[in-house]
Each structure stands twice: as C-alpha cells, then as structure tokens.
C-alpha cells in the first residue's frame, strides 16, 4: 500500500496539488467563483517555484481553453479550470480539443447558470457540456478530487485515449471545504503519470496541418472516427483506475454502489451530495426499507453496461438531478431512462430535482424522495401524469 500523509485540504487545494504533482507545463485560466482558490493556489506554486509551469492569466475563459488547445497541440501538459458562466463562455472551444484529440485536463467547480446570477453549486453547467466529447467524471469529496485529477492526466494522455478529460467537483461543497485526505508521495504520482508524447505535435521539423476544414464529403467520416474512438476509451479508463487502485489503495469504477445488497429501490446521485444520500440510505435501511445508492462516477462516455448491471435487481430507481432541462425534466433522469429503455421494461424510474443554485439537500429530503417515488409509481400505474418535482421549492401565491 502507498505511503503518503494525511492532510487537511480544501478541494481547490487538493486539485492544485494534483496539478503540481502532474508537473503541468502550461496553465491558462480566468478567475471565476467558485474556482478561484484553484487558480490562486496554482499561481502561488508557480511564483514559489514549486511548479515549473507558465501560468497564462488570460482575459477570458474562451481564451483559457484556446491557450490550452494551443499549448497541448505544441506538446505541453496543460490545465485549466472554470465554473458556471465561465464554462459557458468556453463552450465553443471545448469541442476543439476533443475533435482534435488533444489531452487537455480541466476541473469544473460546478455552478448554477444566470439569470438570476448565482455563484452557488448545481449541475446546470455540466448539463450544457454533455455533447462535447470530453471524458467527464464526478468527485464526491476532496480525496476524489485529487485522485480523479491525477487519473485524468493518465487517462487523457493514454495513446489509446487522447481525449480531453474533465473532473467535476461541486462548487463550494468541495472547492471551499477543508477535509482530511491522503496526499501521496510525489514520486509515486510522477511514476503513475509519466511524460507522454502525442503522435502529432506542432513542430517545424515535422510540419503537420491541424484543424483543416471538413466539407460534407468528409465531415461525417470525421465524426464517426471521433465517436468510435470516444466509445473505445471505456476499457482504458477502468484499466487506469484499477492501476491507480493497486498503487494508491483507492478504487474507482464508472458506477459505484452503496448498500445495494438486496436493494429493490436505489437512489442515483452524482457529486458531493452522494455522501448525504449515503446517510439517508443508512437511516432508511435501519427502518427496514430495501434501499441502496448508485453513484455515477463516469458521466461521459456514458457507462451503459455498468449501469444495467447495477440496476439488475431493482424495481425502482430514484434519480436526483441538480439541474433542469426546461420543458423536459431532469436531464440525468432523461438519460437514464434512455440508457435503460428496452433493457428493463419492469424497472420504474422516477426523477426529482433538488439542490439548485446552492440550496442544500437534506438527509430528510433524500428519504422523502424514496417514499414519494413509491407514491408516484402508484400514480403512474393508475395512468396519471407525474411531473418532475423540485424538492423543497416554496409555492407562495398568497400575496
């Protein structure tokens, strides 16, 4: 088992430590709450000489990702981080490293979207990034923020992967909260993420053209190639997580379970609220309800196989969304229904929305979701329309 020391670190600092130990060459970032502590810490590391990197203080998130693309195309190991509106401004550029197969690593400190302005956590920003063809994974505590960022470099840069990778950490819940965690030895991390060489680099001695124009006679072929390559990253991601587990003693997989033995009902969550959901599951189990928890660790590429395996024994899946797909319901719930369609006709899936714009999700609310979901199943069986409920939202209307 690995050495390392137990330290108390903020999620943002945990991410910065991972980037430092990865020995990133170029960091390009623009400050935005709640990502700021990551860039501040990295700036200090560069200023102190603890990290030999160029920190490009760009003038926008659009330029942050653009500079990462350029640096990655020139062969550098790069990092950026953003949140909410910043990811939206960056949005156009996010498609570039994935299409051009550049292993940019980014961390998103998840945040709600305007209007009204909210700097607080939800997953609206993530849900706008579903189709960018980045490998995306969720951390639920600061240890995972460190571990997954470390793994992100190894995954992104693998010659059988070469896709940009994004780690989602919930804004404030992780970015600004100090937890104790194990910080591994630098040498061990360095050994886990060796230097890499991309097959194509911008080099005057071996000139290539990157980012050529794709007319209709060839564009569909480019997208098919990208889609196949992206799908094929799944086994490699698991392989790298397994190797990480062997070295560092912490194991990750695309879909992770909690108290699923004999469960007929399961909650499904992503991100930091999973730990609250665990406490709810503990209490429900004590009350004799056969409930467990499924956490989606890997969000893209979507873990179809592992999800189907996880829900095999279930009668009811209760999905929590921290975002609204307006006019459609909860986006994660929609995707799960789509992923399980034609596979488990007898499985009922009920979605709830909670935790918008930083509103805390209580243990009692997870318990309410489980109870209420069973009522909704009855209503569905009676043929009634069941709308997606936003937990804890006030009705008002009495004025």
């Amino acid at each position, binding site marked *: 088992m690995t050495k390392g020391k137990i330290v108390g670190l903020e999620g943002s600092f945990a991410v910065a430590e991972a980037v430092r130990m990865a020995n990133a060459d170029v960091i390009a970032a623009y400050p935005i709450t709640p990502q700021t502590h990551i860039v501040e810490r990295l700036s200090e590391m560069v200023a102190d000489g603890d990290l030999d990197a160029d920190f490009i203080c760009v003038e926008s998130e659009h330029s942050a990702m*653009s*500079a990462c693309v350029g640096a990655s195309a020139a062969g550098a190991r790069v990092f950026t981080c953003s949140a909410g509106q910043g990811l939206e401004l960056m949005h156009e*550029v996010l498609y570039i490293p994935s299409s051009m197969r550049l292993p940019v690593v980014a961390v998103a400190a998840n945040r709600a979207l305007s209007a009204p302005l909210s700097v607080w956590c939800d997953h609206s920003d993530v849900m706008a990034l579903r189709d960018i063809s980045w490998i995306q994974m969720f951390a639920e505590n600061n240890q995972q923020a460190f571990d997954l960022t470390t793994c992100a470099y190894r995954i992104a840069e693998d010659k059988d992967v070469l896709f940009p990778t994004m780690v989602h950490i919930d804004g404030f819940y992780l970015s600004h909260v100090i937890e104790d965690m194990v910080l591994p030895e630098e040498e061990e991390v360095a050994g886990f993420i060796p230097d890499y060489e991309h097959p194509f680099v911008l080099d005057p001695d071996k000139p290539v053209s990157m980012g*050529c124009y794709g007319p209709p006679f060839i564009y569909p072929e480019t997208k098919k190639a990208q889609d196949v390559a992206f799908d094929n990253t799944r086994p490699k991601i698991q392989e790298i997580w397994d190797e990480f587990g062997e070295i560092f003693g912490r194991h990750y997989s695309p879909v992770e379970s909690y108290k699923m033995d004999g469960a007929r009902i399961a909650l499904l969550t992503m991100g930091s609220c999973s730990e609250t959901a665990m406490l709810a599951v503990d209490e429900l189990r004590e009350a004799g309800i056969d409930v467990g928890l499924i956490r989606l660790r890997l969000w893209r590429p979507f873990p179809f196989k592992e999800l189907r395996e996880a829900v095999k024994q279930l009668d009811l899946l209760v999905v929590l969304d921290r975002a609204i797909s307006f006019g459609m319901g909860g986006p994660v719930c929609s995707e799960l229904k789509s992923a399980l369609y034609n596979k488990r006709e007898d499985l009922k899936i009920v979605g709830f929305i909670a935790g918008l714009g930083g509103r805390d999700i209580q243990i009692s609310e997870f318990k309410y979701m489980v109870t209420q979901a069973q009522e909704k199943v009855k209503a569905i069986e009676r043929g009634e329309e069941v709308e997606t409920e936003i937990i804890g939202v006030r009705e008002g209307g009495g004025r």
Partner: protein
Amino acid sequence: MEKEEDLFVPRQVTTEENFAPGHRACIGCGEALAVRYVCKALGKNVIIVTATGCIEIFSSLLPQTSWQMAWIHTLFENVAAVMSGIESAYKVRVRKGKIPDKNVKFVGFGGDGATTDIGIQALSGAMERGHDFLYVCYDNEAYMNTGIQRSSSTPYGAWTTTAPVGKKSSIGQVTWKKNMPEIAVAHNIPYVATASPSYPLDLMAKVKRGAEMDGPAYIHILSVCPTGWRSPTDITIELGRLAVETGVFPLYEVIDGEYNLSVDLPDLKPVTEYLKKQGRFKHLNDDTIATIQTRVEEDYVKLREKAGVK
C-alpha cells in the same frame, strides 16, 4: 522605398514557396498573394495559427493542405489565445529540457473580422501579456468568406451585403474604418506596421522585422478582394498601389513607438482614382467622395506629424 530595385525581383527574393499552389482562393485574390509573401519571408521555422475565414477555407480542405510548415486552425476569434498557448508551451518545454531551442517563430493570421471584431479581445490580451509572436491581419475590409458582410474595418461609403445601398439615402457603410494598427500601437508593443502586397519587398522586410522582434509584433496588410470589392481580377496590384498613393492606406512602421513612413507622399492622388475602380463605391456621389477626401487628408497629416515629417 524601392523603385528601380523593384524590378528584377527574382534576384531579391527566395524562390522558396512555403504556401503551395492548388489553394482555392478566388481568382486575383490579394490575400492569397499576401499569404504567399508572408510565408516566403518567414521560412519554415515557424508555427502558424490561422483564424477561420477565407485563408483557412482556401488552404485546408481535408484531406489536403497548402501549408508547408507547422500549421493549426481552431476557431474564428481565438488565434492570439491559441498562439499564447503555443508560445508558452514552447518556452516551458525548452526550459524543462524537453525540446531543444531552435528559435521557432510564432505567427498568427486573421482576417479583418477575426482581428478587428470578434478576435480583438484575445489579440489585446496576448499583446498585453507580451507573448513573443507576430500577428498578421489580412484586411479585405469585410466578411468576404461569408459573403461580403460589413466589419468594423469596412471603409466609409463601401457597399456590403449588410451595409447595402438602399433606396432611402443610404451610402452603404456609414462608419469610418477602425484604425487597428493604432490600437496595436496603444498596447506599447515593440513593432507595428502596415503593408500591401503591391509592395512585396517592403512587405517581406516588415514580416522579417516583426518576426525577429522580441515580444508582440503586429502587421496590418490591406488585401484587395476582387470578389467583395467588385473589381476586375487583373487590377489587384494596381488597386493596392492606389490605396497607398491616395493616402487611403498609408504604409508605415512603428518601432518602439517611433513612427516611420515607408512611402512618403507629399502629393496624394485624389481618392476618386482609387474609389472609381471598385464596384463597391460606384454609388458614391461627389459630396460623399469629398467627405472621404477630407478625412483621408486629415488622417494623413496626423500620421505625417507622428512620423515627424513636416
């Protein structure tokens, strides 16, 4: 400025062509010609970043490329930011001993839309941060690639598809051309110049100077566009020359803040000689032409003052 020496050019320029023929630029394209000169002047020890636009479209139709050197295109508005990343990556990798230092030059290409409109923020950021790069703006004075829509670099009185000449007292573009070289100068960068493909030796000398300069350099090239300017394809060079001789597009350099006129013309030709050859100005009446004449003269006087020419 060369006069006699302009003749017998093969003895003065390299025969090396770093921008391959077979590109899909329109017939008589001044921009393609400018790209040819810039690439000749740069040689192959460069990494080029190009914005979305005519150049990228006519040079990089998958699975073919006209570029003989390391080249990348990603988006419309981010050339200077991509360039920043490349330049930083190179510097850091040299510092860390991962690659040898071969004095590679970093050069960004953008049209007037990519430079003066949508990409001005990224360019301003890169100039402010002081990356060591050369940015070349190929100014054909409108969004030609999308079909001749006006940009902030479109000259006063020019017809474009979004600044049309309407039935109701419309003259086309009603704003004055944004002075992008002056905006570059305001960033206190070591090198700013204007150039024209009609003066190839001057253009290539400026590209070399700009590329050699430590820190950001900016060159603004007026690129005649027969398609968008509604001009015959064979007068591309003549129009570029007239733009200079009328004072519409003066050639100058600003080195560390010091202005130098590349061609000083005490007696400017009337602007009408330049305007009348282009379909985009054919609707202009004498009053509008007089307004343009006055403005061009005033601007030229200001420029001469900056250059210390009385």
